[in-house]
């Protein structure tokens, strides 16, 4: 007798209806799920049983009685005991069985504020995770777990999506990463459709990742995508739009008193006096000598503004300008460089369908993301497709497959670093405060020519140092595209209740094309360069899973497996030589001189791994986990390429012994030890020669600059970790605290050597780096009533990094990068990784010493440690407030400590851009007056005899100013504390109440949100810049040059479920 049964499923605790509960007829595949208001209807045989299950609740089975209504209340599960998480190699474990630190982030926490870059969304949400981003459109984000371990190797976490290791490689050039010219092409892990993510699990320590062997040292971020569910069809549409504007607290303010020039010479150099010092005095239009702006000077140390003074300015040389051959008032620009920035607009549209029948499930998703950046003529378009399906092919045989395809197209990515392609190099370092941005804009758009404020001479035909920034954006265009495919096919066969076997093939492949252009008429030599890069990784996995419960109390899980990994990088970069022949033809054949041989790179890596693990459990209380992996890597010398990586972990759920203590919901102690590794970079074993371009018909060969090493061993990281997690009062309050220490030894690194050896570097196994730290997660629900709840989640990380030992020949220091401005980043013995070296102040009694000249005394050597980019601690505080259908979430993200060297301040103060370089001195006179005229300033500090400094130093020209680069003040003067506190994310969302949703069927749910990102920098110490803005992903940090301002984003998002 078939009949319809209906009812409502509610939460036992607060009585709220629960949507999405699976309602299944016991012993069959028939089922449904509850609607948004928690109701369901199902047709069943009388006497049948219904199984109600939902994540986070204890599954309940109820027999259908005589009635047609069956209301159910589900008890919330103690999630720590039963929640299933995905661990290394895709193995699922109950959280209770984990004996190492792993922190889960749920989809809603990632997608809430709709950041294009999934990786950015992790910031502040996981203890131990250091997310370093930059402010360029589509720029790369660096993800480091528990500190930098490898001196020159990769330190970024491994991303694994549904079992597929997915590249997050940095494909930016070495120049770009060291703050010279380049573009940031982003990180491929950002190509994932955030709407397809179900959850992310961050495996932090080596014990958690040991099964990945030689690639496990940096931690793993496991991403699980959404899956279709049997017997249901879901359809959801998401539509969002955000606007972004630069945060002006992260952009320069300018002094408004003085304009173009490096100084105010009283004569024209040939000895002839100039009526107004600081201008040129020449006849450029055949009508007699007139005052002319020093427009070749990319500085603002020139004459004082005076509205009644008329001078020829840069626009006077442009025949199409309204001010052609006209003099204009000498005033500060009405429109500064901030006007160059536009409103960013991001549209995000996605659609997802999932569902399933009796034996199959499927999902299909598509996201389109259109981003217009804050710079003119910048755009990134992302098309992300994902597909996944599973089918029970036969009894006990299950096949799953997924395929993801992303196409990323970039137009006008931002130029970065110390380069004319980065407009901030001018705006922050070399600029004239008299230049009006809107006039520059008009000047470019009149004829789309390079009409610049920085002419090379009075004929006004070419720029000397700086292009018109609009010309840069519209003509010196970079475009790029990436095709990214990843997916897997997995078959699982269940031989018996205690044994199943899994076979899996995964593939991740990217194909990048980058085209960089310098137009004819630019400051730089015109050129066209293209890079084609293909990279792929294929993995073949075979896993045997054993499961045996010796008794009710004693359980066993076992694993035997093998993994074959094959990587391939194949790239070619070619560029024109000596300029372009025809303007606007961007083709290699348009080269003035014959092109040089393109740079070809072909790198392969093969790693074969065999591994085993065993997990013993006792009464849900004790768990002992041991793993072993053996890797053979092709990147190491063949005689010495086999290595073993063991781990052992133990967990003790002490709350099982304290069940009578009702205040304690859950408590576990865990301790573990593991050894993991890092193999060598490909091609670092055998020597090759370099072959420069032939000299006419004569070939050239040269000995390589780096000496390779046929005796390399893999890097190893030993990790010891202990932690406690506990929750109280029905899980209303909980914490998870972990202490860890990792020691990375046998670092494979190209160590600098005295170039008197004939080489500048050689590969060695050298160095030990220690990271130790504490991670703390605290969560609580201070308020929970029928209508209102408040959740708090705090993550705190403090990591201490120290380079314990280096190769004896390294002289106690490995230079990681030498940077513009005379500072270096280093791994130095006894110091944290990445310390900044340069000249320092000379101190007396803690005060900087000032010389009799009035300038700071500077150390004679430039290898003083003047900064440490590593933060003291990082914290993220998430708050979720919910009243009925309205939810407010916000995230405060902070970073305390860590230094950076600002090349922007180093140069910009030397060229007189910033307010501190003008104004009045202690005497009440303009400080830019000469000393004779009462100008100059007294630098804070003491004289060499220890008395307070009272010597006034001249600051009247760029060449002698004590503020910036020209007199070589200590580099330490431009080191800043990069701490910040940011209101990172805010969202206010409203879900349509169930009773309203019912009226607008077929919708199952409608949610509208207002969202904001990076709304407020609550605290920072770096002037006129975003302390967080980095050069690129990668190992280098603590340096800003041409930094991009932060972008405040607001917008809305609509989500429909059908």
């Amino acid at each position, binding site marked *: 007798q078939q009949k319809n049964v209906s009812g409502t499923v509610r939460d036992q605790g607060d009585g709220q209806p629960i949507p999405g509960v699976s309602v299944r007829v016991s012993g069959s595949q028939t089922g449904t799920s509850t609607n948004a208001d928690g109701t369901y209807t199902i047709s069943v045989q009388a006497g049948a049983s219904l199984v109600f299950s939902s994540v986070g609740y204890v599954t309940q089975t109820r027999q259908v009685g005589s009635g047609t209504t069956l209301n159910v209340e589900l008890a919330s599960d103690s999630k720590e005991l039963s929640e299933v998480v995905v661990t290394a190699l895709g193995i699922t474990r109950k959280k209770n069985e984990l004996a190492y630190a792993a922190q889960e982030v749920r989809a809603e926490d990632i997608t809430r504020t709709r950041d294009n870059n999934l990786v950015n969304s992790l910031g502040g949400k996981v203890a131990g995770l250091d997310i370093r981003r930059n402010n360029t459109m589509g720029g790369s984000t660096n993800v480091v777990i528990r500190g930098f371990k490898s001196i020159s190797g990769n330190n970024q976490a491994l991303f694994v999506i549904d079992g597929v290791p997915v590249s997050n490689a940095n494909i930016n050039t070495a120049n770009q990463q060291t703050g010279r010219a380049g573009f940031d092409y982003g990180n491929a892990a950002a190509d994932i459709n955030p709407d397809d993510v179900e959850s992310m699990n961050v495996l932090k320590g080596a014990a958690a990742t040991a099964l990945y062997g030689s690639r496990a040292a940096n931690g793993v971020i496991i991403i699980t995508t959404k899956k279709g569910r049997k017997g249901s069809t879901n359809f959801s549409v998401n539509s969002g739009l955000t606007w972004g504007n630069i945060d002006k607290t992260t952009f320069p303010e300018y002094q408004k008193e003085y304009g173009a020039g490096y100084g105010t*010479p009283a004569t024209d150099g040939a000895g002839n006096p100039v009526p107004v010092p600081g201008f040129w005095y020449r006849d450029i239009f055949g009508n007699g000598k007139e005052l002319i702006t020093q427009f070749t000077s990319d500085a603002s140390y020139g004459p004082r503004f005076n509205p009644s003074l008329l001078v020829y300015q840069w626009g006077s040389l442009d025949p199409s300008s309204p001010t052609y051959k006209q003099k204009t008032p000498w005033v500060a620009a009405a429109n500064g460089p901030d006007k160059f920035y536009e409103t960013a607009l991001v549209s995000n549209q996605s659609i997802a369908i999932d569902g399933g029948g009796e034996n199959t499930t499927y999902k299909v998703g598509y996201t389109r993301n259109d981003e217009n950046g804050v710079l003119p003529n910048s755009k990134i378009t992302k098309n992300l497709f994902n597909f996944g399906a599973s089918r029970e092919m036969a009894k006990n045989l299950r096949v799953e497959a997924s395929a993801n395809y992303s196409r990323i197209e970039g137009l006008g990515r931002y130029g970065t670093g110390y380069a004319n392609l980065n407009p901030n190099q001018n705006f922050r370092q070399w600029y004239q405060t008299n230049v009006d941005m809107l006039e520059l804009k008009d000047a470019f758009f009149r004829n789309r020519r390079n009409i610049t404020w920085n002419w090379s001479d009075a004929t006004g035909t070419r720029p000397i140092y700086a292009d018109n920034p609009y010309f840069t954006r519209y003509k010196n265009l970079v475009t790029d595209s990436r095709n990214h495919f990843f997916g897997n096919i997995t078959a699982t066969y269940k031989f018996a209740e205690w044994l199943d076997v899994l076979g899996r093939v995964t593939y991740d492949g990217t194909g990048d094309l980058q085209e960089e252009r310098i137009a004819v008429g630019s400051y730089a030599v015109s050129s066209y360069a293209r890079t084609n890069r293909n990279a792929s990784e294929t993995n073949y996995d075979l896993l045997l899973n054993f499961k045996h419960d010796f008794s009710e109390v004693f359980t066993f899980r076992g694993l035997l497996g093998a993994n074959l990994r094959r990587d391939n990088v194949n790239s070619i970069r070619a560029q024109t030589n000596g300029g372009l022949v025809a303007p606007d033809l961007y083709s290699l054949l348009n080269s003035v001189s014959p092109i040089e041989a393109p740079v070809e790179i072909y790198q392969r890596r093969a790693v074969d791994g065999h591994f085993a693990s065993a997990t013993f459990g006792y009464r849900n209380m004790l768990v002992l986990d041991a793993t072993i992996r053996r890797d053979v*890597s092709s990147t190491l010398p063949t005689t010495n390429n086999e290595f073993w990586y063991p781990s052992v972990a133990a967990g003790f759920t002490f709350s099982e012994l304290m069940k009578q203590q009702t205040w304690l919901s859950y408590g576990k102690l865990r301790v573990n030890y593991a050894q993991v590794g890092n193999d060598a970079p490909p091609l670092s074993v055998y020597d090759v020669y370099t072959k*420069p371009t032939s000299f006419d018909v004569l070939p050239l060969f040269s000995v390589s600059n780096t000496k390779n090493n046929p005796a390399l061993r893999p890097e190893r990281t030993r990790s010891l970790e202990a932690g406690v997690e506990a929750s109280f009062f029905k899980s209303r309050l909980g914490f998870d605290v972990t202490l860890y220490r990792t020691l990375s030894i046998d670092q494979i690194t190209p160590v600098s050597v005295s170039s*008197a050896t004939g080489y500048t570097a050689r590969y060695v196994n050298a160095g030990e780096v220690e990271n130790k730290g504490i991670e703390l997660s605290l969560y609580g629900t201070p308020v929970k009533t029928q209508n209102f709840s408040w959740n708090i989640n705090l993550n705190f990380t403090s990591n201490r990094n120290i380079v314990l030992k280096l190769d004896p020949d390294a002289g106690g220091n490995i230079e990681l990068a030498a940077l513009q401005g005379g500072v270096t980043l280093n791994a130095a013995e006894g110091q944290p990784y990445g310390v900044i070296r340069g000249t320092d102040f000379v101190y007396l009694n803690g005060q900087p010493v000032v010389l009799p000249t009035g300038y700071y005394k500077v150390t004679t050597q430039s290898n003083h440690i003047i900064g440490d980019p590593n933060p003291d601690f990082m914290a993220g505080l998430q708050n979720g407030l919910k009243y009925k259908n309205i939810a407010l979430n916000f995230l405060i993200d902070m970073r305390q400590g860590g230094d950076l060297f600002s090349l922007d301040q180093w140069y910009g103060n030397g060229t007189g851009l910033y307010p501190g370089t003008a104004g009045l001195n202690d005497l009440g006179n303009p400080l830019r007056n000469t000393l004779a005229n009462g100008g100059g300033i007294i630098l804070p500090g003491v004289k060499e005899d220890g008395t307070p400094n009272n010597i006034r130093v001249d600051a009247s020209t760029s060449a002698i100013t004590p503020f910036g680069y020209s007199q070589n003040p200590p580099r330490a003067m431009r080191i800043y504390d990069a701490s910040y506190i940011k209101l990172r994310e805010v969202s206010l969302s409203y879900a349509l109440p169930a009773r309203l949703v019912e009226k607008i069927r077929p919708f199952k749910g409608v949610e509208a949100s207002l969202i904001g990102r990076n709304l407020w920098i609550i605290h920072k110490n770096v002037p006129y810049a975003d302390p967080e803005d980095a050069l690129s992903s990668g190992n280098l940090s603590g340096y800003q040059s041409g930094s991009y301002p932060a972008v405040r984003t607001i917008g809305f998002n609509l989500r429909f479920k059908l």
Partner: protein
Amino acid sequence: CAKDKSDYNIDIKNPQVATAPPLFTAAAKSFSDIITSPSVNNNPFRFYAQYWTSTEYLDEPRYNLLARPIPQAFWQALYRDVLMDLREARKLITADQFMAAPTKASQLAQTEIMEVMAWSTLVNTYGNIPYSEALDVTKTQPKYDDAATIYADLLTRLDAALTTLNSGATGYGAADVFYNGDIAKWRKFGNSLKLRLGLILADKDPAKAKTLIEAAAPNVMTSAADNLTFRYMKTTPNNNPIANATNPGLTTRKDYVGAKPFIDKLNSLQDPRRAGFFTTVGGNFVGGYYGFSNSYSNFSTLNPKIAAYDFEALLLDYTEVEFALAEAAARGFTVPGTAETHYNNAITSSILYWGGTTAQAATYLARPDVAWSSASANYREKIGLQKWIALYNRGYDAWVEWKRLDYPVLAPPSPATAPPGETISPGLVIPVRLIYPINEQTLNTANRAAAASAIGGDLITSKIFWDVN
């Protein structure tokens, strides 16, 4: 499986085997590049000789060696890019069992002469340097050797190479970018180098200098056809590095103008080479204030032909040889010819090289402030001045000669040399030495420290052993 994938670690895109000739050519180019480059990153010597000064950026004309790692770049270019490739070439030649003996002898001798030239450049710049333990990656912290000892060894090696140069073979043949396998010219070049090194030693060890110079003098370059020139090409990257910094086809920057001390002197001498050296401003040759900001358009800048892509680099020339012979004669060494003849030959050769005529040269030589008989009683002063002018555009060699002869008298930027209305803190001195690279401080600490104390401190004022005045 991966165990058998040893080929994965072979770089199939770069050569694993090489022969000596391309290494030699590469070393020759690298040597010419570093000596000729005007880049503020690696070669500040046109500033130090006060031929040029900069328009805006004053670190380098004001002798700052820390703002950019110049000592590192110069050192690295010579060790890594020149000497290492020569050493590798020598290794390959020696190991080649099938090469004809005369060719082998000549190639080894050519390699050796180039090595001597590069090593002596290092000594003349830094003083004590790693030598006996250098170019060996198994000795990652090479000790520094005494500069005088190195010099002695270099002269021994040079003599040995001169005897093994085999006229019966073309040596490197076409790969010899200097003389295209003309061994006779190599012999002249080798002897001219010996003459140069002999003179450098002359104040320190006159007896040895006399021996060296008298042996070399009959065999040196006899015309401009013998010059050691590197002939750059019209296409990048094989163009003259001067073009990279000054040619409008490669840069819009306008960083250099002629320096006032040099141009003022040319003007006072009505030097016929001015037009070859510089452009004019309003018909005049006007030099910028050395070490101060100078507006580009107000001053003479380099003649565009110097900025040409294929402008040749002179590394050792007939003019220089004639000046050397003049000085040797003035010092009383027995060399063919008189001091005056050589002096006149040198100046004439230089004027012709820079586009002048023999008539102009004759007029010039007749000036009382030029003529050997009347210019100065002090041969150091008159040769110093004229050699300075003749070595224009060869900043490095001019700097070495200035250190050695102590003429012309050059003044560092100071309040006295400042343009009207500007000033500078006093105390700058012109370097007579580059400091050791920063890298040596960190990577070769103990040896560098020992060397520093041995030479009287790692300072720009510590004199090279031969610089006795």
